């Protein structure tokens, strides 16, 4: 137990901050994912074949290629890509992107592909009559989307989005390969310096279980809130 003491003698505080880092990366990645889903869901539902093709390529590639490979692409390629873009604008100094942004972006793109599929499924399963009723009521596009379609989409999407959240949360462990100090990386460091990998990796597993457990409880509440009236 003294291994987990807070302060200089133990790893308690380090692991605590690492847990916060994991939560921060997962939340950022989830938000980036929503942003991608916001762009690609309409493309998927669009009648234009070309737009369909773009959105399908995105979700197929990301869901068919290992997460680790995507992370390596961003880790090794991210700096190069940003410097290339900067050089177009005449900036030629070395730019270093920090591990948090690279990691959150890589996981976010992965999470976005899953979210896109979830939103597509949810919108498609809304009854056609709802769209028609909104039209009949004379709502404008804005009102139709925010008052009629979105609340129903959310109700249908939340259970599946909670799966996406679980996947995203677990995927953050892979960012440890880029050196960002989250739970996995901190356990690796602690295991290396104390020569007690069994304890620290098991403790990491407990931390992840705790995170998934607590987030499931919170999401269940959201689910109840959005399924009022059903």
């Amino acid at each position: 137990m003294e291994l987990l003491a807070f302060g200089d003698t133990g790893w308690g505080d380090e692991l605590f901050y690492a847990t916060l880092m994991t939560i921060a990366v997962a939340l950022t990645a989830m938000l980036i994912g929503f942003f991608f889903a916001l762009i690609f869901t309409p493309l998927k539902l669009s009648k234009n074949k070309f737009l369909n093709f773009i959105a399908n390529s995105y979700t197929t590639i990301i869901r068919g290629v290992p997460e680790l490979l995507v992370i390596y692409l961003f880790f090794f390629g991210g700096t190069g890509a940003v410097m290339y873009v900067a050089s177009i604008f005449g900036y030629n100094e070395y730019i270093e992107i920090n591990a948090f942004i690279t990691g959150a972006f890589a996981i976010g793109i992965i999470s976005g592909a899953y979210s896109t599929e979830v939103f597509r499924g949810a919108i498609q399963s809304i009854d056609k009559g709802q769209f028609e009723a909104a039209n009949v009521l004379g709502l404008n596009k804005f009102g139709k989307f925010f008052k009629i379609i979105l609340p129903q989409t959310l109700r249908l999407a939340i259970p599946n989005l909670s799966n996406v959240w679980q996947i995203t949360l677990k995927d953050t462990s892979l960012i440890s390969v880029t050196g960002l100090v989250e739970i996995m990386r901190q356990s690796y460091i602690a295991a290396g310096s104390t020569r007690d990998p069994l304890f620290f990796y098991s403790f990491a597993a407990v931390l992840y279980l705790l995170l998934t457990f607590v987030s499931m409880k919170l999401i269940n509440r959201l689910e109840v809130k959005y399924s009022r009236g059903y």
Partner: protein
Amino acid sequence: MDLELMINSFPKLLSAAVITLKLLSVSLIIGLLIGLFFAILRLNKNIFINKFAYGYSYVFRGTPLLVQIFIIYFGLGQIEYLRSTVLWVILKEPYWCAIIAFALNTGAYTSEILRSAFQTIKPGLIEAGKSLGISNKIIFYKIQIPIAIRQSLPAYGNEIILMMKGTSLASTVTLMDLTGVAKYIISTTFKPVEVFIVAGGIYLFMTFIIHNVIKYLEKKYSFSQ
């Protein structure tokens, strides 16, 4: 675009893909047996056996695969007692550690898939078997299991693809699978995009094949309800 590098790295990546497929198939076979075993435990009425099986699947589905591999590969070696047993022959090999982790992980997901498949079997089918005077054991093997397999094919197909992506983590314990070799080539040439296209293409091709095989099986074993 460095086309030469892409062409040169293709055979290397392809031979690494063989290792990926080996890891995948061995862990899927062991995982299926583990999954079936725990799915049957989940259907047991004894609350302790039931909770034990639930706990297994909860823990393995709630923690990242990376943690599981690290516990098995780095963690278990720390137990002195294990080092003196026959098990150590297996546990000192990263290859087998990865397979144990993958098999336990996919076993947890498979047990959930099979459990829900068993639970959706209409009671009438089992009753029909009983009224024909078939013994419980044969009802289980000849009626419940074939129907459960058919029911769980789509979900299991997804699980195979997820597991194929999961095998990429073998590269973190020194195995040179497809992702491991891809990372090696990237870090020596600093051409991430080219290598990503080739390695990702091979992964996508494998996903495509698995997807279609499952679709074919679904069609073959479909029945009108």
